[in-house]
């Protein structure tokens, strides 16, 4: 009897462990259109927010949203398993070629903007870093915080995995400082963490750590560092909606949705709605930067 109870407990543990893993949502009416949306983990919360609000006013449409990374989403688009791919970077040339080879004609939509915040532990006295310094830190040239005005501590560099659009963007815009043809890469001892939460948790706990993440994911438990661009190295800027829209914050980017061809029907209606003021308010609520209405 006692044994049975233990097995029962073990079963509950198993079940709770599994159910926390899924992130897809699908609600709505039984009939009508079904949109599958997959890709960037940066966009997943935003896309979920949009999907929930949109389904309230359009009960005939069902939208399922999944994360996995920009590369994962675009691969799924090429494999024709989804209707919309979310990406926090632009589609690569070889991905475009693969899509064309599969008979598709991917269309690009800029749906929001995002700032990449550079974050450190709140105990870390460093307030500001230049793009040049960030590049030197992540390539392993600068290894101690005292070299950038901090305490005598080793620097532990955190990054997302290479299937993350944020990783690719950071590589191009920060480490290579936007220079085309530059082949500098992350130093080998950069920690590649599988989730945004992992980066936030480590920066929160570890005074040696430096990390980067989309502004929408940064919590109060970590400190955002002001960053200066290459053009004006003395002007350090904290990321915000204003500094992204007036282009003073140097590490900001567009967020994209891709469709396999020119959208029609329910997908087109959904994308049109995303560019509306109502949808862009959600962008702001979730900590991203709304695209300016022309």
């Amino acid at each position, binding site marked *: 009897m*006692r*044994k049975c109870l*233990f*097995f029962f*407990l*073990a*079963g509950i*543990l*198993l079940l709770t*462990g*599994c159910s*926390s*893993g899924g992130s897809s949502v699908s609600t709505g009416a039984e009939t009508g259109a079904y949109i599958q949306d997959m890709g960037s983990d940066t966009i997943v919360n935003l896309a979920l927010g949009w999907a929930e609000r949109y389904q309230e006013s359009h009960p005939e449409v069902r939208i399922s949203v999944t994360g*996995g*990374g920009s*590369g*994962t989403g675009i*691969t799924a688009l*090429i494999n024709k398993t989804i209707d919309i791919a979310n990406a926090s970077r632009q589609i690569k040339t*070889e*991905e475009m070629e*693969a899509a064309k080879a599969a008979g598709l004609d991917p269309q690009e939509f800029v749906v929001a903007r995002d700032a990449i915040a550079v974050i450190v532990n709140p105990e870390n006295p460093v307030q500001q870093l230049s793009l040049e310094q960030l590049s030197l830190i992540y390539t392993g040239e600068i290894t101690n915080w005292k070299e950038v005005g901090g305490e005598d*501590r*080793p620097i*532990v560099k955190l990054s997302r*995995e*290479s*299937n993350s659009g944020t990783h*690719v963007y950071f590589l191009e815009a920060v480490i290579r400082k936007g220079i085309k043809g530059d*082949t500098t*890469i*992350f130093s*080998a*001892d*950069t*920690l*590649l*963490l*599988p989730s945004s939460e*992992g980066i936030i*948790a*480590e920066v929160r*706990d*570890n005074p*040696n*750590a430096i990390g980067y993440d989309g502004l929408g994911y940064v919590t109060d438990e970590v400190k955002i560092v002001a960053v200066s661009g290459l053009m004006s190295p003395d002007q350090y800027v904290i990321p915000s909606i204003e500094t992204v829209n007036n282009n003073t914050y140097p590490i900001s980017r567009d967020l994209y949705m891709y469709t396999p061809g020119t959208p029609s029907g329910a997908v087109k209606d959904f994308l049109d709605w995303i560019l509306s003021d109502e949808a862009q308010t959600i962008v702001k609520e979730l900590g991203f930067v709304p695209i300016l209405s022309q």
Partner: protein
Amino acid sequence: MKKLWMNGDTIITGLIKISGYSSILFVTLILIFLLREGLPALVNIPLDSLFSTRWYPTEGYFGILPLISGTLLVTITATLVALPFGIGTAVYLSEVAPAWIKEILKPIIEILAGIPSVVLGFIGILVLVPFVRTTFNLPTGLSGFTGAIILGLIAIPTIVSIAEDALNNVPSSYRQASLALGATKWQTIWGVTLPAAKTGVLTAVMLGVGRALGETMAVMMVTGNAPVMPEGLNAIILPLRTMTATVASEMGEVAQGSTHYQALFFIGIFLFILSLIVNVAANWVSSRQLKRSERILS
């Protein structure tokens, strides 16, 4: 009536036979698939590049050495962690513990085996990682050592249950003889029972190693995944990247048939070979010991 029974018998025996052979079929098919997808990597990536020390496949660096060394380091350390705890628990359960404690402990260990590795990884991130960093004053707690502790926890139930069975199979006349000769309880365990159960205990350890070798999720969450080439013994307290974590985190993004895809399958072949070695070693150990004991008994 009798004939019908005979038919039922042949059908059931046939079905059992099929399910028995099917595992051979599955292993063969998996191996063929792995080789077909992975071996082209040897053609498309120059050997000196494949066996170099930098892994950054999105930019064409395909050096798998840091991944191999990462897996070996974590697995060996995890074995060192799990070995004393696993065998100690097995000895306690089979030789020392009173029946009622055994009744409670065994199901608890079975629960430990049932906890999904994601959950262990999550606890690792929140509890173990900060603990390891502050206790050993490391730059970061996301290290091979943290991964080895979690892997040890995962391997312990396997080691305990198989080693305990092996100890239980030692005839009680051995223990009685030893105790009658005046040996203490500990002397009996160390000098008689454990050596008599050596075969089973070694098999238990090997299977525990195999379990640690293939574990993915928990390792991916706590080792930091930095593909660093170890430069000394201190490499275990630094971040590292295992083969399993690499395949798991990169397989989702690669285009089918690309060089990166082939490199990941090549890593798969390597893992397959490693676990094959561990299993063959376990088999070899048990069969060799069996022959010796047969000689003694005859």
